[in-house]
């Protein structure tokens, strides 16, 4: 059985790997890394958000304890019955669903040194470059080790010359954030780490510094300068440049050298290294599993008798309209993303899903394809924006629905940001939906 997966972000890769584990031949076609590669180190399943209108409360009002991620998952599905979680968790236990997914992902990524950290019973509180705190359900190696709640003393490591991180203001912000969260009984300080001359020259280009930190000469030069940072029970938070690929090795070395728990701060563009590492680890997992990876953009889907039978692919860098390759298939998983991935586009001034012309729905389940993007935005930036919650609707097996509510293609499945009625930037469920729906789509597609 040959399956084609369109899109190589977390959703597409999860689908491809599940299909492969069930013995199918899989070809994954990706035009580029997509929004997965721009994530910054957390795996948000249903992360608590400061936007109380769109997010979920931090604490259970009766017990006062922080709500566990699995509980919040149900809360999301109950609050928005069109959310993909409502489909994914129907007649399933959310705790076991998420745990199983986390274990699977951890297994796929572990050979690349990336682990999925976090216990679903407990929220992790992680700091970002600005000093703001984010609640994380699960997190990846790198930032994931930096839980603030379990630290007695927290030190931000200031690296002079490294841009994007101003340690003193970040400390002030962190102090205020911890106070707002009721976590203020921790010592906070800034520690200075002067880079040796060879590395200092790279400080203005963080990606190159990160690559250099994985090399032995750099570590030899940096080692002695790290020792003064050591102290009992301290959590050392570094700016997110701890390696381009093997952050686990850099962290291990840092911990050995300083004797402290070390972690990265959560990053942000223009250097989303955590997302970059995740993307590379996923691609490596595909290779190990024997998934064929094809670079290119799927431009058409051939159908016959209510089934998808093939895709047309445009080669990367080919001019528009040039004839491309074709692949035959028995099952199709569409994980083409939202705008960043190109799964939803503006076509002739109207919102559209370009491959199957699927109808698109916003948060309230209102149909929005065929409308101009300008009509789907609201003035309040932090409020609901129907445009950024638009996507496809599916049945219980994740097969996308057509305009009449019926399933047009019996062997096509949808996953990830392409799914509609959820706004990942506001409800903090992006990678959670990608992982859960990707796996489910793969499992369902394998049954075709």
């Amino acid at each position: 059985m040959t399956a084609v997966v369109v899109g190589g972000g977390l959703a597409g890769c999860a689908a491809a790997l599940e299909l492969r584990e069930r013995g199918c031949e899989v070809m994954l076609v990706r035009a580029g890394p997509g929004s997965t590669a721009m994530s910054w180190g957390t795996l948000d399943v249903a992360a608590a958000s400061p936007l109380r209108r769109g997010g979920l409360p931090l604490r259970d009002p009766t017990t006062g304890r922080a709500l566990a991620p699995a509980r919040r998952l149900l809360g999301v599905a109950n609050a928005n019955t069109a959310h993909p979680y409502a489909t994914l968790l129907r007649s399933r236990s959310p705790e076991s669903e998420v745990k199983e997914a986390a274990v699977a992902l951890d297994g796929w990524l572990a050979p690349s040194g990336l682990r999925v950290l976090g216990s679903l019973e407990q929220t992790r509180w992680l700091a970002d470059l600005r000093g703001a705190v984010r609640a994380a359900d699960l997190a990846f190696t790198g930032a994931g080790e930096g839980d603030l709640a379990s630290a007695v003393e927290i030190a931000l490591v200031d690296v002079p010359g490294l841009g994007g991180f101003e340690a003193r203001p970040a400390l002030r912000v962190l102090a205020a954030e911890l106070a707002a969260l009721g976590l203020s009984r921790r010592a906070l300080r800034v520690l200075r780490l002067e880079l040796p001359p060879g590395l200092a020259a790279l400080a203005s280009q963080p990606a190159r510094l990160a690559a250099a930190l994985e090399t032995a000469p750099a570590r030899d030069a940096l080692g002695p300068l790290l020792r003064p940072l050591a102290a009992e029970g301290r959590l050392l938070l570094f700016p997110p440049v701890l390696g381009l690929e093997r952050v686990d090795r850099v962290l291990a070395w840092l911990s050995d050298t300083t004797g402290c728990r070390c972690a990265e701060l959560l990053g942000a563009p223009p250097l989303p290294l955590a997302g970059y590492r995740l993307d590379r680890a996923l691609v490596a997992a595909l290779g190990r599993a024997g998934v064929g990876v094809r670079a290119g953009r799927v431009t058409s889907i051939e159908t016959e008798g209510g089934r998808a039978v093939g895709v047309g692919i445009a080669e990367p860098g080919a001019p528009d309209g040039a004839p491309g390759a074709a692949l035959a298939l028995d099952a199709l998983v569409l994980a083409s993303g939202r705008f960043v991935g190109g799964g939803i586009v503006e076509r002739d001034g109207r919102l559209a899903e370009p491959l199957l012309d699927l109808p698109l729905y916003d948060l309230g389940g209102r149909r929005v394809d065929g409308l101009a993007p300008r009509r789907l935005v609201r003035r309040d930036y932090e409020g609901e924006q129907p445009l950024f919650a638009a996507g496809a609707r599916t049945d219980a097996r994740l097969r996308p629905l057509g305009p009449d509510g019926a399933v047009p293609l019996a062997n096509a499945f949808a996953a990830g940001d392409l799914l509609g009625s959820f706004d990942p930037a506001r409800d903090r469920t992006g990678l959670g939906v990608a992982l859960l729906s990707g796996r489910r789509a793969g499992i369902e597609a394998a049954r075709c």
Partner: protein
Amino acid sequence: MSRSLPVQVLVIGGGINGAGIARDLALRGVRCALVERRELGSGTSWASSGMIHGGLRYLQQDPEVTLHSCVDSGAIQRIAPHLVFRIPFIMPVFPEDPIGPELVEVGLEMYDRYQPFKNGRPHTRLAREQALRLEPALSPRIECAFTLDEWGVDAARLTAANALDAAERGAQVMTHTEAVELLRESGSGRVLGAAVRDRITGESLRIEAELTMNATGPWSPRLAALAGADVRLRPAKGIHLVFERRVSNLAIYARGIDGRDMFTFPHEQNSMAGTTDDDFYGDLDQIEVSEDEVAYVMQAMERSIPSIRRHRVIHTTQGVRPTLYGFGQNEDELSRDFAVIDHARDGAPGFFTIAGGKLAAYRLMAESASDRLCAVLGVREPCRTARTPLPGSDAPLDVVAVARRFRAPVPAVVRLGFRHGAHAARVLALAERGPEPPAPRTVCGCEPVLDAELGHAARCEAVRTLGDCAFRVRLGVGACQGASCAPQAAGLLADALDWPAERAAAELAAFAAERWRAAAPALGGGHLAAFEIHRHVFLAARGFTAPLQQPTEAPA
């Protein structure tokens, strides 16, 4: 008990006219203060097309206006050569155009006579194939085309340069400071200055001035009403669409469906399309761009450049012109003339208003207003603004040498030179502290803006908020609309200005909301992905201490 500041002239309004007047007065040795409610030039000045043009369209009715505009354009080039850039225009003539090519050429030949005043080149006439060779994106339907040239300027930076020069010469320049009430003498009604309030710190100040100049542009009637005076304006809204990069290095004329002339012109790093001219009755502090206006501009551009819709629009500008009142005319026909009004006739002696005009004539307007004020004050100094260079224009900048010396990337130094001229080296030197100073880093990649420039803006140019940076150094107005640079810049400013924690979060939220406000009306195409990222970045970076923008229901 608030402090008081005695000056000779208080200028209210820090747009191009207010800043120009403050500089003119300061150069004449007059003690003055300039207060601006938001950021310098962030009102009408910033939203202008940014062209110090000679006024070709006034040639038919008012050759005087054209002459004065051209002469002044030359003056502005002389005093700020690093802020201006030449823009050649291409004017296509279509078969159905009401004015034939011969008449157009006559007009241009007349205009050629004024070109030497503003360092312009004479026009050329291009046949169809030649025009398409020069600009392949032009519509193939054209009959022929003409070229001429004008000069463009960064209006916000020009305003800031005037204000900073004034400050250097002794003027008190206060941004984010609002004139709350005018001080009056009880008997004569004479205006004696104003009570102002710093909107960031909340501090109040009484500025006691012999004369008060209202240079608030379209807000003039509102301020004048505080003195019981009447200023009649016919405010006219104008918008532009801003493209991600230069669509063409030439400015291309386009005609709207109602016959209005517009253009798509290069403006610094981008191209802008516009502008419109519609009577405005709304809220000056919340100028919206409507779908109709966007469609109108795009339709016009499409006629001249059929492929224009393929280009990515990243945001819009919107502003309201303080046009002098005229009844019964179409917006375009109203005079661009200006007036300096003495409100003694309204029972408020000592209070003046300047209104009308256009960006290109700011120096003339400032000179005229300052002459009026100095006549009253009895100051006999002549106007020196046409000859005295603005800061940074005293010498040309050797980009490569400066880049090498400070180990800065060359593209960043090019743009730094555009804003600061010869002072670019000084800006970079400020960041050099300690034995091994780090190389300057790019914060905003789209412009680019270096961290050194941001630090300088905060420490030496009185930039006080993150939003100010968008005007002053063009932070976050490119493709990423701040997603890549605003959080870092907020950290930099927080460090330089010693912000408390809540301040940084509030600034970021306001910055993001402002970018959204300008970009949303033109959202589409490739820009959808950019804002998908933008929202992820800003909503995640929000943190738990930032106040919510709107009141919410209590958490469940």
